[in-house]
Structures are given as structure tokens and as C-alpha cells.
């Protein structure tokens, strides 16, 4: 059955699974909590239009941390995972951007 091996993506033979160290798990956890504190604090400061930008930036940083470390994307040898994530974000962007292309250019707005 050895030749049975799939010809699919060149899988690195039996890559040892990455085991996150306890320290890094906790470090990310602390970072996420800090991000939460920061975003709540920032919301109470008047930054004008930047309030939204700051809130979304912090949310994106938090999400990135979760994806990279908690969801192990940083350690995976699989390029495909990245491709899936990127295409999901891309098509979400298309949905939002092209819809807004209509709403922001209506003359009566």
C-alpha cells in the first residue's frame, strides 16, 4: 500500500504536529485581553472619524492573532489554508466594496 500515497499536494511526510507552548498560548491570551481593554478605552476618547478605524484595526489585529496562533495557521506547512483564508476575505471585500460603490455614489445621498 505504500505506492498508495496520494499525488495531491506534496505533503511533507508525516510532519510532526506543532504543539504550542503553554507560554505562547498565555501570551496570546494576554494580548487579546489587552486588545479588548484598549479598544474599549479608545471608544471613550473622541477621535472623530478615527474611532471606527481604531476599533476595526484593533479587532483585525485580534482576529489575526487568533488565526495565526490559536488556529495554527502560522505553523502549518499547508499553503492552501492561506489561500482559502485570502479568498474568503477577498470575496467578502468584493461584496462590501461593490455594494458600497452603489450607495456612496448615489446622487441623492
Amino acid at each position: 500500500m505504500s505506492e498508495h500515497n496520494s499525488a495531491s499536494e506534496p505533503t511533507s511526510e508525516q510532519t510532526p504536529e506543532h504543539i504550542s507552548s503553554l507560554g505562547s498560548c498565555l501570551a496570546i491570551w494576554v494580548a487579546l485581553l489587552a486588545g479588548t481593554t484598549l479598544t474599549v478605552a479608545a471608544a471613550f476618547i473622541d477621535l472623530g472619524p478615527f474611532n471606527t478605524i481604531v476599533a476595526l484595526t484593533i479587532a483585525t489585529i485580534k482576529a489575526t492573532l487568533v488565526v495565526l496562533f490559536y488556529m495554527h495557521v502560522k505553523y502549518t506547512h499547508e499553503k492552501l489554508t492561506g489561500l482559502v483564508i485570502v479568498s474568503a476575505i477577498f470575496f467578502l471585500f468584493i461584496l462590501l466594496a461593490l455594494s458600497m460603490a452603489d450607495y456612496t455614489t448615489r446622487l441623492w445621498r
Partner: protein
Amino acid sequence: MATAVVSDSGERETYLNSGYGLKSWLLTVDHKRIALLYLMSITFFFFIGGFFALLIRLELLTPGGGLVQSDTYNKLFTMHGQVMVFFFVIPGVPAVLGNFLIPLMIGAKDLAFPRINLLSWYLYVIGGILMIYTILNGGVDTGWTFYTPLSTEFLKTNVISAALGVFVAGFSSILTGLNFIVTIHRMRAPGMTWNRLPLFVWAHYATSIIQVLGTPVVAITIVLVALERLFHLGVFNPALGGDPLLFQHLFWFYSHPAVYIMILPSMGIVSEIVCCFSRKRIFGYKAMTLAVVGIAVIGFLVWAHHMFVAGISLYAALIFSLLSYFVAVPSAIKVFNWTATMYKGSITYQTPMLYAFGFIGLFTIGGLTGLFLACLGMDVHVHDTYFVIAHFHYIMVGGMVMAYLGGMHFWWPKISGRMYPEGWGKLAALIVFIGFNLTFFPQFILGYMGMPRRYHMYPPEFQILNVLSTAGATILAVGYLLPMIYFTWSMRYGDPAPSNPWNAAGLEWQTHSPPPTFNFDEQPVVTWEAYNYDEMDEIPEIREVPVAN
């Protein structure tokens, strides 16, 4: 390599005889059996939708509307649309032929997730039952598009059960797409590189991307419609500050790419057939693969061309019109490449090839009239008229159904282990082609004349063209019934099929007809490019089954 001759002894175990009884079918995880389950349920819905279509055409024989009430007529076209779109055209090719053939074509034992595959059939059935319930409970008259605020605030019919049916069927579609992507990535046989994949597989890969990324948007939109109807949320209700155009944006974000879910797999079928019956490599394999993926991706960028007169901004209309032309390029490439494939070929005209010819011709017309609709100034006039109806029926019926029937004939020997009667096949193909054109070509003219779609009664000057169309529809109905009859007949009386009746390239032809449960006796190893017809013999003469049998 074409020497992998398989002897077809009588008592060989196949996926068909490996188990008997209802349970062995309803609980099967074999992709081939699931494909057959789909085949039966999809055929069922095809005939339900077709029945509605016939009633519509009969009603439109006379301008005054005598056969049914307006109310009933509205339900007829709504349910025709919903049944056909969500329960036949979208799942049609992928769930039947894709399901059956993808593992065979890539040399796998099954799809990556056989149980999810079965689950998606059950979801389809649940969605279907909800649809049937909707029909039996008095129907629904939203139009298949569910436009708000009509669907949310004004209609008294079974909107929610219909919406739920579409929602559930949507998840069936998502799971099928997900399964295909994973299968194509992970389950290919040794040596089956991306550049050796048949275009049928490529087409399904592109389709699956749309299914996975597009369908959820319409799912949540439909949920919002149902919630709005139940709790009067107001997200799409202008009386509560909502914007009905937002519904249209979200709906078409899926439903335009959904058109490519319908047509891309059919393009895959046609590529296989044209190559086989020309005994040729596909012309421009790379371009063809780029084209299918290109269509899938660009197809997501063009949705608001359904909304040019809906009240969107001028600038948005401009962007979407421009982008719509981008998606036409890869479609054109495909047509040109199929044509070029035939150059210096050795062409024979078995039934599948006739359907492929029909497909290329009708798709050309359907595609070119699509350019009319992408053209802003033109669309304003023909939007929501029979021109649109004719256009998308040329793509969906002329394109998808033609290719689907072509594919069914092409792979029927593999699926059933029997040959269909070739003479009847050719006759049916001819009838379908003539009936189709007679049905839908007059509708282009009707559309430009200004006959709006979804009209129960119409001004008398449109009658001649409508009568022609109805006449065509009856012919078309005969054309569709014939294959249904002789396929059924052939399961018992057809000649036993050899493993490769067409001497076709492709892994699926190297196993038995019908294949064993795990598809191949030995794990195949691929060392050749797709469509290596230079190494294949000519198509053997097939003994014609006497027509009068």
C-alpha cells in the same frame, strides 16, 4: 496505456449489485449510488418544473388569459422558477454527473467526505419536501427572485416555507461544492497533476468555489426575508427605513454567480465530448483552465447588471456594465477553443456529439445576447422583458440541459453498464434542438417588441409569437420525454456496454462499466496528459439497436 482491457464477465461485482434493498441505497456512502439518488430526485423536479412550464406556455396561447387566474399564473411561474433553478439547474450536473465522475476521473475511491455527500442529498430532499409542501399548500407567488418588499410585506402565500426550502437546498449545494474542492485537492491518484486533470474536473472545481463562497450570502439573505416577514424587522422595508435595493444586491451577489454554477459544469461536459468525438486533444488546455477559473472569479464582480433600471447609482451601473464585459472574454475563449479543437479532427456524430454541437450553437446565441443585456442603453429597454427570458433560457436550457443530456448519453454506458439506443438518441437530440429554438427564439423578438416578463395577459399583437413559442414547448416536451423513456428501457434491454465504448481518454473509462464499489481494481497511476487521443484507437462501430424494438 489504452490497453487496460477489462473483461466484463457477467457476475462481476459492481456498485449496482453490491447491495440490494432500500437501505443499501438510502444509507449508501458510495458517490455513485448517491449520484443516482440525485439523478432520480432531480429528474423528478425537472418534470415538475417542466409541467409548470407547459402550463405557463398553454396559458400564454391566448392574450386574454383564460386557462388560469392571474393569481394561479403568478404561482406557476414562481414555482417553475424556484423548482428549476434551485432544484434542477443548480444541482443538476454537479450532483449527478460530477458526483459520479469526479472520483473516477481523478482515480479516487470516493469523494473526500462520503457521509457529507449523503447528507447533502438528504438536505436536498428536505429542501425539496419543503418545496413540494409549498406547492401542495397553495403555492407561492413571489417570483423566484423573492423581491422585497413584495415578498416580505404584501403577499399572503407560503413565502416562508419556500424560502426555507431554498435555504436548505442551498446548504446541500454548499456541501457538495466543499466536498468537490477537498476531493480534487486531496484525493487525486499518483501522477494526476493539476495539468493532467480533465476539464470536466476543472470546471467543477471552479463551480465549487462559487457554491462555497456565493451560496451562503443568499442563504443569509433568505433568512433575513423570512425574519422580516415573521417579525417585521425592516431591513428591506422602505416604510421602516430599509432599502429594498439592498436585498437585490445581496440576492444577485449569489444569483448571478449561480448562473455560472449552472453553466460551468456543462462547459466541462462539452469539453470532454468534443475531444472524444473529434479524437483530439483539447485546443488550448491552459487557456481553457484559466477561462473556467476566470469565469468563476469575475462572475462575482458583475451582479448589479441585474439592477440597471432598479435605481442604483449611475456610476455603479457603469462599473458593473464594464465588468460584465470582462466575464464575456473567457466565455468567448471557450467557444473558440471548442471550435478549434475540431480542426483536423476525425469527427463522428454520435448522440453526445450532437448535443455538444447544440450546446455550442445555443450557448453562442445565449452568450451574445448577454452582451446586449450588459450594454446599459440596451438593457434599459429589454430588461424584465421576454428578451431576458429568452437569453437565460438559451444559457440554462440551451446550454445546461443540452450539455446535461449530452453528458448523460456519453456516460450512460459507464453509469448503467448498458448502451442507450443510438437511433432514438439522435432523434431525441434533433427534436430537442428544434423544439428549443422554436420555443425560445420568438421570445427574443417578443422582448424587443416590449412584452414584459411575468405577464399573465398581454396585448393581442404579441399573440403570433407566443403561439409559436408554445408550439415549440410541446415539441420540446416530447424531446425530453424520449431520453427518459429509452434510458429506462435500456437499463434492462440495452446492449451491455464495454468498459470504454467510445475509446475515450480519461480514467473513468479504464475501469469496468459499471464500476465496482471502490471504482478501480487497482490504484491507477497516471503518466499521461489529459485527452491523449493520439494514443487512442478510433471509436468502435456500435451496433445500432433496432429502433422498433
